[in-house]
C-alpha cells in the first residue's frame, strides 16, 4: 500500500511546479483586472506570443529559453504598454461589454496572425536540461526544467508582490484600483499608470510563456487553454487580488494533478470549471484574499 501514497505525493509536487506557472499567469491577469477592470480575453494569446518570441530567439540566435524568457517579458511589456495606449485607453470609460469584445478581437488577430506567419505546425525546443531528472528517494522524481521554472517563478512572484505592496508606483496602482477618480485628484497620472500596469501584467505572462516553452508543444492555439485557466484563477483568488491569484494558481495546479492521477487527465479541466462555477455561484468574491491589487 506504499506505492499509491508516493504517487499522490509525486502528483502534489508536480502540481506545485505547474501551479507556480499558473500563479504567474493568474497574477498578470489579476493585476490587469484589479487596476483596469478589464477582463483580458487575449491573455492566452499574449502568452503564446511570448512562447513564439522565446522560440525564435532559440531557433535563430541559439539563446537558451531560460535566458530568452527575459527578452520575451520585455517585448510583452512594450506590446502591453502600446496596446493600452493605442487601443484600450480609447474605450476605458465604456462598458465591460466593449472591453471584453476588444480583447477578444485582439486575441483572434494575434492567434491567427501568428498562424499566418508561422503556420500551424507543432514546434518544440530541445535542450539538454529537459532530460535531467532529480531523484529523491526511490519514489519521487522531479524534472529539472520544472524545478528551474519554479525557482524563477517564485522569485518573480515575490518580487511582483513586493513591487505592488511596497513601492510608490505600487501604491499608485492600488489607489487606482480603489477609486480611479480620487486617484486622479491626488495627482496620479491614471492613464500612464494603467498603461504600465497592463505592460507589467503582460510581462508576467511573457515570463510564464518563456518558461513554458521548453516543457510544452508550441502551436498558435496553445494559449487558449491558459486564457480559460487564468479566468478560473482570478475568480478563485478573488478578482483583482494578486496574492489570491498566486495561491489560486498553485491550488489549481495541485487539483489538476490529483484529478489526473485519480480520474484521468481528461477530467482535469472539467474539475477546473466545476470549481470555477461553484466559487462563482457560492462565493463570487473568491476564496483567497480580499485585497484588490
Amino acid at each position, binding site marked *: 500500500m506504499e506505492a499509491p501514497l508516493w504517487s499522490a505525493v509525486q502528483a502534489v509536487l508536480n502540481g506545485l511546479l505547474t501551479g507556480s506557472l499558473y500563479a504567474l499567469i493568474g497574477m498578470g491577469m489579476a493585476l490587469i483586472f484589479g487596476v483596469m477592470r478589464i477582463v483580458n480575453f487575449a491573455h492566452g494569446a499574449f502568452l503564446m506570443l511570448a512562447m513564439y518570441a522565446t522560440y525564435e530567439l532559440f531557433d535563430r540566435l541559439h539563446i537558451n529559453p531560460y535566458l530568452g524568457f527575459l527578452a520575451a517579458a520585455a517585448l510583452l511589456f512594450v506590446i502591453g504598454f502600446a496596446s493600452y495606449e493605442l*487601443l484600450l485607453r480609447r*474605450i476605458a470609460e465604456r462598458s465591460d461589454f466593449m472591453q*471584453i469584445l476588444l480583447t*477578444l478581437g485582439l486575441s*483572434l488577430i494575434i492567434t491567427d496572425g501568428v498562424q499566418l506567419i508561422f503556420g500551424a505546425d507543432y514546434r518544440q525546443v530541445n535542450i539538454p536540461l529537459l532530460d535531467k531528472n532529480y531523484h529523491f528517494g526511490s519514489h519521487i522524481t522531479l524534472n529539472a526544467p520544472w524545478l528551474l521554472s519554479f525557482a524563477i517563478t517564485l522569485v518573480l512572484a515575490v518580487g511582483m508582490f513586493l513591487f505592488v505592496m511596497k513601492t510608490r508606483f505600487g501604491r499608485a496602482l492600488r489607489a487606482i484600483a480603489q477609486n480611479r477618480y480620487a486617484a486622479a485628484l491626488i495627482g496620479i497620472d491614471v492613464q500612464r499608470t494603467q498603461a504600465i500596469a497592463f505592460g507589467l501584467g503582460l510581462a508576467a505572462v511573457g515570463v510564464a510563456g518563456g518558461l513554458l516553452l521548453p516543457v510544452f508543444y508550441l502551436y498558435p492555439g496553445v494559449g487558449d487553454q491558459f486564457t480559460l485557466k487564468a479566468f478560473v484563477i482570478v475568480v478563485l483568488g478573488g478578482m483583482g487580488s494578486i496574492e489570491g491569484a498566486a495561491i489560486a494558481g498553485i491550488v489549481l495546479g495541485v487539483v489538476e494533478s490529483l484529478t489526473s492521477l485519480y480520474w484521468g487527465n481528461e477530467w482535469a479541466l472539467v474539475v477546473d*470549471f466545476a470549481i470555477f*462555477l461553484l466559487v*462563482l455561484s457560492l462565493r*463570487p468574491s473568491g476564496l483567497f484574499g480580499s485585497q484588490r491589487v
Partner: protein
Amino acid sequence: MTRHRALIAAGVVAACLMVPLVIHKDYQLSILFRIFLFAGLGLAWNLVGGYAGQLSLGHAAFFGIGAYGLSAFHDRLHLPVGLALVLGVLTAVGAAVLIGRVAFRLRGPYFALATIAFAEVLRLSAKNLQSITGGDVGIEVPGLFGGDPGRWFYWASVGFAALAFAITALITRARFGYSLLAIREDEDTALACGIDTTRTKLYALVISAALTALGGALWASLYLYIVPDQVLAIDISNEIAIVAMLGGAGTLLGPIVGAVLLETASELFKNVFKEAHLVIYGVLIVIVVLFMPEGIVGTVTERWRHRPKHGTKPGTKHETKP
C-alpha cells in the same frame, strides 16, 4: 405601419425562398445557408446579449445540445428524427434554466465568464462521455431532409432566420421586450419598477436557447457528423456573439447585417488566409468597437436620427426597417 412592415418582411422572406430557382450550385447555396443560419443564431443571441444586455459567450452550449440531442436521441435511443429534434431543443431549454439560475445571479464580466465555463464543461464532458456522444470519434447525425438536401437546407435556414426574426419583432413590441430593455439600462432600477428581473432574463435565455439549439441541429444535420470540438467550441459561441454585436446588439436588423458581412468576409478571405480566417473577425471587431460602438445598424440609425434636418443630407446609406 406595423402591418406595412410585416408585409415587407413577408415579401423579403418569399424572395429569399425563391433564390434556389436562380442559384443551383450546392456550394453557393451552402454559403447562403451559413449566412441565414448565423443571422438566426445572432437574432437568438440578441435577445439575451442585445436586448437584455447580458453578454453570453457560451451559446455554443445550446448549439451543441441541439446538435447532440438530434444525433444522440436518434442514434442511441432510436427515436424518430422529428422527435429527436424536439427533445434536443427541450434539453437545451432545460440547460438554459440551469445555466440561467446560476449565471444570472452574476453581473458584468462574471456572467460572461460563467457562460463560457458552462459551455466548456459541456464540451469536455461530451469528449469524455463516449457512450453517449461518441467522444472525439464523433457521432452520426441523421439527415433532416431527403431528396435535394442542398435546397431543403437552404429553405430551412431561411425559415429559421425568419422565425427568429418574427419572435424578436414580437418581443420588442411586447411588455416583455420593454422589461428586457429596462434590465439592460439599469437592472436595479428595473427591479425597483417591479420587474422580476431574474425571471425575465431567464425567459429570454430560454427562448434564445431553444432557437440556438434548433440552429445547432440544422447545422449538424447538414454535416452529418459531429465532434465536441466542433459544435461545442468557444469559436461557435464567439461567432454567434460577434455576428450580433458587429451588426448592432439590441437592434432588429443588426444580426442579419452582421451575418451577411461576417460570413461573406470569411468566405472572400478564405483563400487568402486559409485556416487563419479568424484574423478578419478580429479586425472587424476591433474596428467596430473603436469606431462604431453601437454596431453597424445601431451607429447608422443613430447618425440618421441626428442628421441635419435642413440642408444637405449625409450620403450614408440608411437601413429601412421592415
